Structure formats: C-alpha cells, structure tokens
C-alpha cells in the first residue's frame, strides 16, 4: 500500500498505443485525450533538501527542546515526505490530472450518481472568506450569515421533501442512511419503552437497493430482510405482505428505484408498512427525477436523505466531499441529531444543541461540528438560482433526456442486444440488460463499457442493480444536450455493429486511455 518501499518499477512499454491486431479499429475511435506516460509517484521525484515551503522565522525565544517536548515523546526520524519544489509539485499533479476523465470534459451517464453540471458560481461563492475561513466554533452572533444560510437550506429541503424537520449534519448519503436507521431504532425503543429483544429489528430492503442500504442496516445493529421485485420492476406486494410483521422496524426504498421506475404502488406500500408500526425510509439518491413533481413526504415516507452532491449539484471531487442531510416527519423529529439551526421570533439564528428536555430523545451527534457547510453553500446557491420553477424544470428535463436517449437507442436497433430490463418509459435513468449482447455478440457489459472509453464517454454504471443480467444503468441528467445524447446512442450502436463483425475489438478495449485494462485482482 505504500509508494515508499517500492524498489522497482514495472517494465513499461512506453507511450505507444499500437495494438497489433486492431490498429485500424483503434484509429476509427476518437483519439484519447488522456496522457499516457509512465506512472511515477511524488515520492519518487525530487532530491534531498529540495523544498517548496519556507517556514516563517522564529520570532520568540528558542525554548529548551527537551523541556518543551521530551525526547521520548518525539519522532526520532522525520516522516519520509517528498522533497520537491513547488514547480515539481505543480507539474506532477497537473500531469496526474490529465490522466483523469471528468464531467467538465465529457458525458458522464453514471446511473444513480446524477452527474449534472457543477456551476462555477458555487465554487466562487463557497470560497468567499466569510464562508471559507469561518471557524466552526465562532460565536453564533458572529456567524449569523452562515446560520441563516443553513436555516434557509433546512427550509428549502423540508419543502422539497414534504417533511417538516431537517438535520443537515450527515456527511454523505450513506451517513444519512445511518442517521435514518438510528432514528428508527430510537423511535421504536421510545415507543416500546425498552430496547433489545422484542423490539422491531428487521429492515426490509428491495433486491434492487443500493449496497449502502443493507450495509447501513447492519451498522445500525438491525437485520436485513430482502424483498422481491415484481414483473413491473416495483416491490412485490405479496412478498411485502408476507414479511411485514411486528418485527419490522423499517422499509428502505428508493423511488424512483434503481431500475429508474416509479413504484406505482407506493401508497399501498406505505399503508402496509405503517400498518405494522414500521417507518418508511426514502433513499434520496434518485430525487433528481421528482423535484417539485412528487414529494416523499406526500408518498408516506417518514425519513428522507438527500444527496446534495447528486440532485443539488456538488462537484463529486473524485469521490467526495458530499453531504447527506435528512428530513423527517413530526413523529421522528424528537430523535433528530443535534445541533439544528433555529430562528427566534426576532430573527436571530442559533445552533440548538438541545439543552432542554427534548435533548434526551436525540440520537446525538453523528460527526464533528455542524456538517459539510461548504457543500451547503453550493447547494443553497443552486436552489436560489433555480427557484421553485427551475427545480421542477430540472427534473422534467432529466426525465425527458433519459426517455429520449432510451428512444434513440431503440431507434438504432440497440434494443435487440440491449433490451430495457423493465417497463417502457423511465424516470431519470434506465437499466438495460446486456444478456442478449453477451449471448449473441460474445461481448459482456464490461467490454462495452471499456470500448466506450475509446469514444470519449464515461460508461454507465455497470452490473447494478444486481437482479438485471449484465446490467447497464444510464442516467444522462438534465444538463446534457440532445446532440450529446445522439452521439452517445450512435457510439453504442457502433460498438455493437463492430462487435458483430469482430468481438475481439471490444474484448481488448480500451486502446486510447493512459493505461489499458488493469488487473483489478492484483
């Protein structure tokens, strides 16, 4: 796991991208924009004594080293950090950046991840010193702007969810899920007056659920019970009725679900779940389909998490940061994590740590300080920019774009090899099955994905949801143009045509990337 102890470099054939059998095919694809060069870590660069940092001068009397920090508590050798100059650091990381594909460079239809454009206004606003250099323990009366922003964001999210109470604290979607499961436990324990044996402890999760759902259930000390999917792609109501009993604490649901389908039976599902006293949890990963059009609270959900980095456009940063605020119904509100932001009658904002009687029921704190405020600034800016009508427009265009892309793929005959797994129309994303393609054209979904890299597209989410054979999950988002969707459909059609001629082209792809297929088992 360490770059330091490496004493060898793997043999590197250099920068040539030539492939003996398929040179012509490679040439037909879009030229790869990413740098192909030998990977060298920052630890392998530089020279002893080289540096970027200049330490401010010692302006206080030099203390006796031993009395300030005894030798037995000190490091005997400096940490082996790089010894590099500023220009070397800049060149190294700029060169690494050119080995990344990113949303600003091209289409990124990664299903369930909502890779929509990140307006640069948000970065500028978040970098204002009044936001970026505000200490989290600044006194509330000296942080009124930040608290007002959080209060307004809480209000906007509550309205979008259709649930009255919001905590901004969770750091990401899965952290919001964990909050939701702990809230569910607290709710049942409070109602039942006891914890442990006899309490509802089962959490129903559809077999289409994101992996974070079952993982979260386990971390919250609850037990996963899987629900089957019906032929329409929704929850199998018979299976739900059979499993819904007094041991059930919660049903976790994504709606629209990971097949890109809105579960039409949602009201009945809510009635069954509430009928046994359980809570209904909404995984907000797919909220981008329904903003201003349908609200989880109105569907009967008790707890919702938002992925601010999805529907409310945070740059994904190559794997974070994000934020996962939650909204809850009245009956769950007493258990919310603290602190929450409040406004007094005279318009003063405060952080309510729950010093009063209500605090006893709070599940407590989930992290340090108040949440990922920098993300709140960006998502608040987004909500201010779009407003009520704009949020609705965003969801409408997201759904239109997904349906248009689906239609274009059908038109191009792609459906023969990559049929839609469920339904006819879709919401903001759709799932194709690569099963027929694998059978007839002898290439798998993975091969199609790797070949798409040569066409300059980020592949869709692959092999998820698990119940679809060779799944491809495609989410174009509302910020893509018709031209981009057409080009993507064309690329898929071309890859299938190419595979019909010679499957080896896809099997050996990609050709134009900084590295070719990697051994991921190593």
């Amino acid at each position, binding site marked *: 796991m360490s770059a330091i102890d490496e004493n060898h470099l793997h043999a590197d054939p250099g920068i040539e991208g030539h492939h003996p059998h398929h040179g012509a095919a490679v040439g037909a694809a879009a030229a790869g924009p990413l740098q192909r060069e030998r990977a060298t870590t920052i630890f392998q660069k530089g020279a002893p004594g080289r540096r970027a940092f200049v330490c401010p001068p010692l*302006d206080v009397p030099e203390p006796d080293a031993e009395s300030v920090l005894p030798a037995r508590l000190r490091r005997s050798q400096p940490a082996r950090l790089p010894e590099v100059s500023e220009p070397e650091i800049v060149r190294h990381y700029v060169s690494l950046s050119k080995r990344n594909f990113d949303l600003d460079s091209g289409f990124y239809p990664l299903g369930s991840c909502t890779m929509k454009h990140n307006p640069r206004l948000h970065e500028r606003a978040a970098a204002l010193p009044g936001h970026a250099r505000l200490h989290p323990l600044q006194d509330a009366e000296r942080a009124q702007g930040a608290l007002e922003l959080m209060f307004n964001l809480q209000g906007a999210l509550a309205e979008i969810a259709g649930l009255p109470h919001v905590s901004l604290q969770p750091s990401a979607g899965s952290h919001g899920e964990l909050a939701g499961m702990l809230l569910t436990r607290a709710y049942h324990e409070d109602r039942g007056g006891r914890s442990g044996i006899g309490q509802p402890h089962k959490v129903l999760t559809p077999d289409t659920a994101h992996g974070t759902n079952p993982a979260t259930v*386990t971390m919250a000390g609850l037990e996963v019970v899987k629900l089957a999917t019906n032929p329409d792609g929704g929850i199998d109501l018979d299976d739900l009725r059979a499993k819904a009993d007094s041991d059930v604490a919660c049903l976790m649901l994504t709606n629209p679900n990971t097949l890109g389908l809105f579960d039409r039976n949602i009201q009945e599902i809510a009635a069954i779940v509430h009928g046994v006293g359980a809570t209904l949890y909404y995984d907000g990963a797919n909220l981008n389909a329904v903003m201003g059009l349908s609200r989880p609270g109105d569907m009967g959900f008790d707890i919702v998490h938002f992925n601010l980095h999805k529907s409310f456009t945070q740059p994904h940063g190559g794997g974070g940061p994000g934020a996962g605020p939650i909204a809850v119904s009245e009956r769950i509100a007493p258990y919310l994590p603290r602190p929450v932001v409040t406004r007094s009658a005279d318009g003063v904002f405060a952080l309510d740590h729950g010093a009063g009687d209500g605090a006893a029921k709070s599940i407590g704190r989930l992290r340090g300080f108040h949440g990922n405020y920098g993300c709140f600034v960006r998502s608040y800016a987004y909500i201010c920019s779009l407003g009520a009508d704009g949020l609705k427009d965003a969801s409408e265009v997201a759904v239109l774009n997904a349906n248009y892309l689906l239609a274009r793929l059908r038109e191009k005959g792609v459906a023969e090899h990559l049929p839609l797994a469920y339904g006819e129309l879709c919401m903001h994303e759709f799932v194709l099955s690569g099963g027929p393609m694998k059978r007839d054209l002898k290439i798998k979904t993975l091969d199609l994905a790797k070949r798409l890299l040569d066409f300059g597209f980020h592949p869709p989410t692959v092999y998820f949801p698990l119940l679809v054979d060779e799944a491809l999950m495609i989410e174009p988002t509302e910020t893509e143009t018709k031209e981009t969707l057409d080009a993507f459909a064309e690329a898929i059609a071309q890859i299938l045509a190419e595979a019909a001629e010679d499957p080896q082209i896809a099997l050996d792809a990609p050709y134009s990337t900084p590295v070719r297929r*990697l051994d991921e088992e190593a």
Partner: protein
Amino acid sequence: MLAAVGVSSVQEIFERQIPEGVRLDRELDLPQGLSEQEVFAHLSELAARNVSAEDELSFLGAGMYDHYVPAIVDMLTERSEFLTPYTPYQPEISQGGLQVMFEYQTAICELTGLPVSNASTYEGPSAVAAAAYLAKLHNSRRKLVASAGLHPHALQTLRTLARGYGMEVVEVPLATGVAGGATDVGAWTAAIDAETSAAIFAQPNFYGAVEDAAVLSAAAKDAAGPVVIAQADPIALGVLAPPGDCGVDVCVGEGQPLGNRLDFGGPSFGFFAAREEYLRRMPGRIAGETVDVDGRRGFVLTLQTREQHIRREKATSNICTAQALNALAGVVYLAWLGRRGIVELGELLLARTHYARETLGALAGVEKLHEQPVVREFALRLTTPEGAAADVDAIRRRCLERGVNPGVDVHELTGRGQDRGVLLVAITEKRSRADIDRLAQALGAAVAGERDGAAAGSEPVAQTAVVA
C-alpha cells in the same frame, strides 16, 4: 424529442408513471430563481455577516485550525479534472485520482507509522467511531474504553454510533494534580478488561496535552489486548513519535489542518491508518498498485470485497462517497511542506505555543490548566480573585471587543463541571509573537476588568473600541 419518445408532452411521461395521488398539484413554496449575479450578491451578503478568521485575530481551534493554505492547493483542487469526476470506478480513465489516493495513503502511513491507510473517511470524529467498528468486527467484544481527552465531538459521535453497533462506551478521566492533564494511566488500565474491544485516546488530547502513547498502548495491551486506537492531530505528528511506533494499532484523525479550509466545520477529511492485520476490515476506498495488460504500472481501487457495493449487509462499512478532493488537498499540502518543512513547522509551533502558554499563564487570574507538553494548543484556567472559575463567556466578550478572539470556552463544548473557567487557545504559524502579545494584552485586561467589575458589583466597564 417528445416525438421520439412517443408522447405529446413532458407531463405525459410523468402522468403515465406517477399515480395522481402522489403528484404535487402546486408549485413548491420556494422563491423564484435568480440570475447568477443576484445569487452571488446574496451569498456575499451572507458571508459579510460572518466574522471569519480574516476579520479578527483568532485563537480558535479545538479540532479545526487556521493554518496557512498554500496557493497551489487552491489551484490544483479547482482543476476540473480533480474537481468533477465521480469515484474512480473506471480505473483506465481515473489514473490521476487513483494515484493521488495512493500517494495520499503513503503520506498518511508515513505520518502515523502504520503500514496501511484508506483513501479517506468523512472527518475526524466519525473516523474514531469507524475505528471502533473495526475493533468490533475484529474481536466481537462489546466495550469501548475512551479517554476523556478525546475531542468531545468524537466522544459524542462514538456514543451515538456505538449504540448502533451494540457497544458500550466507558470514559476514563484525565489525571489531576501534578501529573494532571493527560489520561489517568491507573484508571485507564483498570477500565480495560476482557470485554474491552478497543481502548481509545487522543494525541495530543483535547486539552492540548501530549499523551505518552507508548505507556497507554502498553498498559492497554497488558490489561486485555484490545485494539488500541489513537485519534491524532496530523500536524503534531510531524514532531511527535509516530503512533505506530508506540504500539497503536489504528490511528485516525481530523485532516482539516492539512491544507483544508475551515469552512465552518466541513467538508474536510478523516484519515484512517492501521496495522496490516486490520487491512481486510478497513472502511472505505483503498487504492492499490497493479499493472495493465501490457504490463504498464497502474492503480485501482483494491480489496473492494470489503465494500458495500459488493458485500452489502456483510460489508465492513457503509461508506461510499467520502472526501477524495479534501484528501487531495492534504497530500498536496504535505508535499509542499515536505520532509524538512513539516519538522520546521512543528518546531515553530512548539516554540510559539510555549511562549504563548508561559506569557498568558503569567497573567493575573490566568493559570496553566496542566504542565504536560503541548504542541500548538493549550488550556488555561481563568480564575476569580477567590480562586473560583471565572466567567469565560464574559472575558471572551471583552477580548472580542478588542478584535481578539481568545479561544474556545471549553465548558461550553464538554459540559464537564471541572471545565468551568477553562479557555482553550490555539496557535498556528499565522499567529506571530506580536499577535500573541496582543492576545496577552487583551486577555490580561479582560480578566482584570472582569475581576474589577465583579468586585465593584458588576458595574458596566468602559468599552474599548472594536479593532478588527
């Protein structure tokens, strides 16, 4: 586009899929949208109503610190290629991000003296709770022994999440008297038994004291062999003995001091390093080295069978999106500091913090809370003439009027009775000797003023003009 889809309107797509009963039949009750310049003006106006570390002389710390962030951190984290990709699921077009993770992990291993690191967790306190979960997976014991020297947010987070894990948290007090300020080794050893899954301490602790990590680790191991977890400050690790060398099994902490903004508390990142035997129970992403079909060196997300998207309810953690961009800032910052710079910075902090502690501790009505070594933060006890705890809130307000934010009211954060009158002061390289002297003046005057005010029956004191 509608014709291609085969519908007459966008509404039809929704009407055919969403039952009428759950369709919103009104517009959201939110303001209408604004132009870019209007939004920027609004957010600027909100920013202007915050007093940032630029607007006052701030000695706030307690978990997040106003260190200098070099310009190259902004320049590199703002690059589209790092800013806008998702988690590197397609390694062939994510070599930049994956190699950054690999280099970041290497830097964290170097700082902590432990052989494996993940690519980041959310932030410091939740990283402590994640480490406790690793201990539970490792030994299935049910008790967590935690020093009272942990950051109060870490203790609170640990309690919240341990409840989910079905674990109990036992808090060990700090020692008092001459050896006070550090974890009470006797109580620590006594609290650890065969049911103890993990023993957790902070380095330095919340009150600034450098703990004897080797003594705490050895005592824990001798007692019952729990997983020893340290929550460490990464800047202090530039000069302190690496936890891994002191017998610590898992070292986690708050990464904000490494090139990340204050951001009113987030986003930052949590680091997470461990001994090799815990590798398969680590939470989150881990980048590893491999080769492509041509034998060319490359990087991939490795050991994914631990993770939620593969392992589902049997995963070692539910974490998915973490803090990749913040970790990038961390590794760029560490490369910028470099092998010598991190030591020089640490020595400067030691010297200035020592100077500040001695200077402030010599003021009337101000004493050092403890005599343990400190790196860049220390606690003071403010007293009344009778020796009781002074009103920290009132004293802080007097300092604020002079444009000096003297630090954190510890009681407000911990709620512990013995923390009444305690002020926590942080010194970064941005606080010069002149700044520290100005703090001494402000604090001295404030404590004296409060004493005089109290003696005179709490008469209002003449206000000093605000100097920002």
